[in-house]
């Protein structure tokens, strides 16, 4: 049985300290003047009025930045701390004010007068790759960390491919039935409730302390050291509690700007984004346009597929952390299936929209919507059936996925049948149409991230675990406590788990990729082993684990959406989402369940309401009044069925769960809408209006 989470009381009483709650002696406050235009040259920045405001300590533009450093990023350094001669999106930071209060800083920032010369706008990914399209960056291949070459074409951030296009085309030519459709998803935001915030405190001796809404403290330390040529040993990222993340808080955010300002004014500088700025200036989910071609033989077996994704990366590539500067969820689109010839291309392009980064299972919600919708359509159109086509083609044990990898086990068919076996409990309102839709998602679990931690003797027999990870809500620190409790056989109240700053532990890969538990469990298991062998006079054990791999294993989920549609309006009511989830051992059942429920609700939001409303280079959803997130009255009944007994990885025999539940939801709902109405919706979010017109046109009934 799991005991209550480690951070529960502090969070419930308001005592937990988040970045915005930190107060330092002599702290000053920053606010930013942001671009009003998606694409323009900056002809003049007039700071004369702003800097005379009482309480303003300084107004800074790019030419003031210390050491001339300006570009930063997670892999590609293409994001300017402050715009130089040009802005590439609405919200690009142009100048920053430091003042004695946040209100003064904000008011002064509004008084900065920028003269722009408007440039043509590239508003969509499709427009970005048209011959002769305006170049968002003149020579993107020259940026540090860039993975593009001039030969790839214009406005490219990255292209990732897998498989052979020719072989896939040949296979499709021989297919008995094919589907060829295009699916569209919008730009989205992680929707964490805590806006991004930072405090930088630079000292004359070259040392720097940073509090930042950031889940990867060691990577942040390295970025700041690189940008400002600081000694990494003197850059200390301080512990904080994170108010939600979902991928959005892996980027350096405003830490480079805050650091620059602290160097410039010689005082601690705090900058807390207003939520409207956060919607405008952070790194949400890529909008996608994905053409899917799939073919089956006369027996319903997949023979080949071509999956071409065009993704809107926005104005900068710098927020994608992985080596490919791409989204692995896209190239993993068919990972649950046996597809003899599968070609996938994931092309991410620059536009004048908000830069996009990683959001809960990067690329997978888009890819799963496209692939699982197309497969469903192929099943229905060919007469094979939407369920049958999945049963025929899901991997069995011992089968290789399109990468040639064979996982320890494949339980896609089992989660499918488990989802379908859950009894229906919700009735459609009288007069409404009822339908069901299914979608499946799988993700690989092989990489074990590096981390480190220390166990230390405390007073009265206490064990103190010092960890490098911030608690983002997923419960990583509680997992540490649970392992120590069972591993050492001591009570929870004798265990303290605390995050320490970056100088106090050697390394960590950061929270993310559904692998926190895995990396942590490896390190804790090692530490417990050392602790048990520790001589009595020794005070502590410290372990550092390197990147490794295990398995390879994978985890599956199947979601069954049960929906009702009002035939007079097209209004969609999702009555229930059943999630059948492939699990091995579960370290903390309650936290595990919340990952499924929270993920499903996030998938539901992506499916039916979330949209940054990017149009013409302007995001129109700039407050939570317009950028809607699901509330408790909106959501369907959530039902979970666990498929236990799986073969997991790591010392605790676990499977990833954090990114399993939010990926299949969009397709499950769209598939259910066709089942109910005959109308096929290929664009998220699924809107009542789209269903209404599609029903009127009698699409594909």
């Amino acid at each position, binding site marked *: 049985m799991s005991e*209550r*989470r480690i*951070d*529960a*009381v*502090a*969070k*419930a*009483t*308001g*005592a*937990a*300290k*988040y970045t*915005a*709650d930190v107060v330092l002696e002599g702290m000053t406050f920053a606010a930013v003047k942001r671009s009003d235009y998606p694409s323009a040259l900056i002809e003049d920045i007039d700071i004369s009025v702003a800097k005379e405001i009482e309480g303003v300590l300084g107004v800074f533009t790019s030419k003031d930045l210390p050491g001339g450093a300006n570009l930063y990023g997670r892999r590609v350094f293409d994001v300017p701390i402050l715009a130089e001669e040009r802005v590439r999106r609405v919200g690009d930071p142009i100048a920053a004010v430091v003042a004695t209060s946040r209100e003064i800083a904000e008011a002064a920032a509004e008084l900065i007068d920028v003269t722009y010369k408007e440039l043509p706008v590239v508003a969509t990914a499709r427009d970005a790759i048209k011959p002769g399209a305006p170049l968002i960056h003149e020579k993107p291949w020259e940026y540090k960390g860039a993975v593009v070459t001039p030969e790839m074409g214009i406005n490219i951030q990255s292209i990732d491919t897998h498989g052979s296009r020719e072989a896939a085309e040949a296979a499709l030519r021989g297919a008995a039935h094919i589907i060829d459709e295009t699916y569209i998803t919008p730009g989205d935001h*992680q*929707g*964490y*409730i*805590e*806006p991004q915030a930072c405090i930088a405190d630079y000292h004359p001796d070259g040392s720097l302390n940073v509090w930042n809404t950031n889940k990867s403290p060691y990577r942040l330390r390295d970025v700041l050291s690189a940008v400002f040529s600081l000694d990494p040993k003197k850059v200390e990222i301080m512990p904080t*509690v*994170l*108010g*939600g*993340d*979902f991928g959005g808080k892996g980027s350096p955010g405003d830490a480079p700007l805050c650091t620059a300002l602290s160097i410039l004014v010689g005082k601690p500088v705090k900058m*807390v984004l*207003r*939520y*409207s700025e956060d919607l405008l200036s952070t790194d949400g989910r890529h909008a996608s346009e994905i053409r899917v071609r799939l073919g089956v033989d006369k027996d319903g077996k997949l023979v080949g597929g071509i999956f071409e994704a065009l993704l809107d990366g926005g104005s900068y590539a710098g927020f994608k952390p992985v080596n490919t500067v791409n989204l692995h969820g896209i190239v993993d689109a068919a990972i649950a299936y046996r597809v003899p010839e599968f070609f996938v291309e994931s092309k991410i392009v620059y536009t004048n929209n908000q830069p996009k980064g990683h959001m809960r299972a990067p690329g997978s919600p888009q890819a799963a919507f496209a692939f699982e919708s197309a497969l469903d359509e192929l099943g229905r159109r060919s007469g094979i059936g939407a369920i049958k086509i999945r049963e025929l083609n899901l991997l069995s044990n011992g089968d290789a996925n399109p990468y040639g990898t064979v996982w320890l086990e494949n339980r896609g068919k089992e989660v499918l049948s488990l989802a379908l076996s859950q009894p229906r409990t919700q009735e459609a309102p009288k007069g409404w149409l009822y339908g069901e839709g299914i979608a499946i998602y799988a993700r690989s679990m092989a990489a074990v991230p590096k981390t480190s931690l220390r166990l230390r003797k405390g007073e009265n027999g206490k064990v103190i675990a010092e960890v490098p990870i911030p*608690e*983002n*809500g*997923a*419960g990583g620190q509680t997992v540490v406590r649970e392992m120590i409790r069972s591993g050492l056989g001591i009570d929870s109240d004798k265990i303290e788990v605390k995050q320490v700053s970056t100088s106090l532990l050697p390394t960590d890969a950061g929270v993310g990729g559904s692998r926190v538990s895995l990396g942590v469990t490896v390190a804790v298991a090692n530490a417990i082993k050392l602790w048990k062998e520790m001589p009595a006079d020794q005070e502590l054990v410290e372990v550092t684990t390197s990147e490794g791999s295990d398995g390879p294993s994978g985890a599956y989920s199947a979601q069954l959406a049960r929906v009702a549609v009002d035939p007079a309006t097209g209004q969609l009511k999702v009555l229930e989402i059943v999630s059948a989830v492939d699990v091995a051992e579960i370290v903390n059942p*309650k*936290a595990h*369940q*919340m990952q*499924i*429920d*929270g*993920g*499903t*609700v*996030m998938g539901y939001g992506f499916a039916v309401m979330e949209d940054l409303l990017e149009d013409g280079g302007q995001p129109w959803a700039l*407050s*939570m*009044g317009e950028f809607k*997130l699901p*509330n*408790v*009255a*909106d*959501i369907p009944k*959530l039902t979970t069925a666990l498929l236990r007994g799986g073969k997991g990885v790591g010392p605790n025999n676990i499977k990833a769960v954090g990114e399993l539940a939010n990926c299949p939801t969009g397709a499950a709902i769209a598939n259910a809408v066709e089942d109910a109405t005959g109308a096929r919706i290929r664009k998220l979010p699924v809107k009542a209006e789209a269903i209404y017109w599609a029903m009127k046109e009698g699409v594909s009934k």
Partner: protein
Amino acid sequence: MKINFSLNGKETELDVDPMAVALDVVRGLSLTGTKEGCGVGVCGACTIMVNGSPVSSCICLVGTLADKDVWTIEGIAEKMPELIDSFVEEEGMQCGICTPGQIVAAAAIESVGASNAEEIKKYMAGNLCRCTGYQTILSAVEDHLAVN
């Protein structure tokens, strides 16, 4: 301008700009359990209780609190420990940024007399949570109402 009100059960006089929002004022008093989220009265992270009703402190001008009975999470936690227990026991939280607002909203639920599951949902719909999927929060509120 001097504003008098009761804050967490204590008579309080503040010399503040009456046009400041209550969120900034209480946080300025080190009551940082009240969180700034959306800033436009939608998300509920900044919920405080005023005369028994839930209020968005981010769009509440502090001048309008004159002579009122104001509670923040810090006061609620002392006054209603059983409500805190309900959220802790049910684990009605993950990242925790919305949690004080959820709890203060739950503390003020009597203002609308919500009791059954549908009424609770309608009332709590103003408090967004991006982590939990709401099930444990609902359990905590239901648990609290069942006990009281």
